[in-house]
């Protein structure tokens, strides 16, 4: 098992460097003069231009610039936002919990319902429920989620008035951001009804964001379950006189979940991509919205290092999922 972890870790390092190279290249590829781009002005005074080039280190050869960049990263210096002058790292840390909360809620929604639907569809294969689940999940990953969000808002917020239209919490409440997780912070504060309000704000975005993962997880669980239920050891379990529930959930599900776990992990990428869209629609103050606004405003330090951070996040989660998969699958666990 240790060698498995070591190997996975080993693959991580070059990928990480590859990402830094990619983000470095991205910014250098922007057409136009870099100083003008950075300053957001045209026709910079030549002397100021030379000074800026000097300061930004732009007259050094590219490989040196890259090393400078990596060096800064190693020190945790990710630059400053051109708009707010805040450190990119600080902004990221402030906004990240919002996205995390949303993503976890979405994953919870997708995981619980997806697993359940997939298992039941497999048990009742060929039934109306089964076809329904398959149909709905196909529709789920065929639809543009930003449109889905708009439809849900139109229906639940505007027509029915059940949920709010945007944001994390009503402006009436003044919640101290102790953890950054609105659900926890509202519980900790003594404002009445704040928690419920936070939950109401979270529901629609979580459903929207979780729709595609739900579809994928349901499908995957169903097909994995169907395969497992055909295996010989299920027949043995039944021959032992075990109850049907035990056969399905203890013997079947345990093995069926192993491939589903990898799918869970892959959904992180989908979640982050979806977060960008979901946060835009619901004005959810997370890193997705932050990134899009930065792009629109040509806030390049944020764009560059924001992308870097997000990519690192995805790699990290994939790494953790890989390890979890190795733990779950006894054959890999015992590899030398």
């Amino acid at each position: 098992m240790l060698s498995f972890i070591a190997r996975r870790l080993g693959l991580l390092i070059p990928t990480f460097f590859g990402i830094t190279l990619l983000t470095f290249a991205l910014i250098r590829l922007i057409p136009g003069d870099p100083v003008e781009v950075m300053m957001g002005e045209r026709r910079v005074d030549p002397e100021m231009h030379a000074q800026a080039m000097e300061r930004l280190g732009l007259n050094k050869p590219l490989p040196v610039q890259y090393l400078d960049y990596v060096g800064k990263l190693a020190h945790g210096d990710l630059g400053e936002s051109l708009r707010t002058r805040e450190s990119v790292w600080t902004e990221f840390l402030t906004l990240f919990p919002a996205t995390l909360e949303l993503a976890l809620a979405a994953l919870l929604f997708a995981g619980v319902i997806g697993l359940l639907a997939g298992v039941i569809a497999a048990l009742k294969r060929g039934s109306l429920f089964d076809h329904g689940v398959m149909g709905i999940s196909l529709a789920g990953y065929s639809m543009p989620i930003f449109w889905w969000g708009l439809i849900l808002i139109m229906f639940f917020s505007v027509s029915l008035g059940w949920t709010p239209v945007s944001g994390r919490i009503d402006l009436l409440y003044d919640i101290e951001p102790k953890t950054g997780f609105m659900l926890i912070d509202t519980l900790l504060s003594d404002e009445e009804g704040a928690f419920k309000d936070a939950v109401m704000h979270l529901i629609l975005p979580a459903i929207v964001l979780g729709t595609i993962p739900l579809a994928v997880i349901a499908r995957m669980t169903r097909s994995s379950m169907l395969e497992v239920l055909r295996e010989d050891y299920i027949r043995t379990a039944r021959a032992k006189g075990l109850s049907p529930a035990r056969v399905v959930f203890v013997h079947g599900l345990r093995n069926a979940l192993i491939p589903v776990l990898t799918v869970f992990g892959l959904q992180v990428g989908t979640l982050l991509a979806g977060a960008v869209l979901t946060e835009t629609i619901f004005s959810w103050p997370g890193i997705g919205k932050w990134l899009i606004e930065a792009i629109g405003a040509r806030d390049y330090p944020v764009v560059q290092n924001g992308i870097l951070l997000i990519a690192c996040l995805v790699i990290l989660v994939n790494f953790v999922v890989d390890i979890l998969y190795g733990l779950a699958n006894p054959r890999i666990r015992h590899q030398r």
Partner: protein
Amino acid sequence: MSLLQINNLNVRFGDANAVPVVDGLDLVVDAGEILAIVGESGSGKSVTMMALMGLIDAPGRITADALNFDGTDMLKLSGRQRRKVVGKDIAMVFQDPMTALNPSYTVGFQIEEVLRQHLGLKGKAARQRALELLKKVEIPAAESRLDAYPHQLSGGMSQRVAIAMAIAGEPKLLIADEPTTALDVTIQAQIMELLVNLQKERNMALILITHDLAVVAETARRVCVMYAGQAVEVGQVPELFDVPAHPYSEALLAAIPEHSIGAERLATLPGIVPGRYDRPVGCLLSPRCPYVQDNCRNQRPSLDPKAHSLVRCFYPLNQEVA
């Protein structure tokens, strides 16, 4: 009274007109005896036992005049009632041990499950008993094997574990469905010896499903020959081998390679087992039988007691021999 009594068992996959996989099977097994069921692949031997265990799912349908085990009518049992019997009083060991065990749980867990379910043993007591069972099935270093995973065991050891799981409930009847087919030849003998010893010790009835006639000759007391879903001959072991009454039994014995030493070709019956669309009106063997007469093609013989055995044939062989 017999331990197991099966009368006119029919198993079909599909509606009432579908071709039966098991066709009017009668079988009797007494407590403590070893019965072998032999036949080709597709003769219905495994399906019969799976029907008894309640392992046949829709679209399979089971009908029988009687399916009695130890005085209980298995057909009338609810799912829950059946699960009290299956795994405890009747247990089954399957053909491929490498896939019969759940790869995600330890050996100990899988044995203790049976103990918990049927004997109410938990915790230390269960673990202790599981250890005893492993020792009983002659697994070396049993203590460490309790926490092993199936992929860490060889074929022979996995089958021993499967046997341990089967006898954990102290069954009155153990069904072994081709338990050695998937194993190496050297291990085959060991496993068969183990099964026979366990049977003797516990006075279990043992139903051995196999297509290996040598094993039958060595271990069983009675043998049932199946063909195309029917029992065609049921007899005592030495007699059936010496004086087979049904033409199919004779053909089976003749087909053993050792019986053809010196011949140019192996002895076979021409033709194949009837399938879905060519089931004969008369005797199921009639298209292939070397002794076929006209009325064989039109009527189905019933399983009747003849000179040495129960035979399903209008013109059984070797009847004159004492």
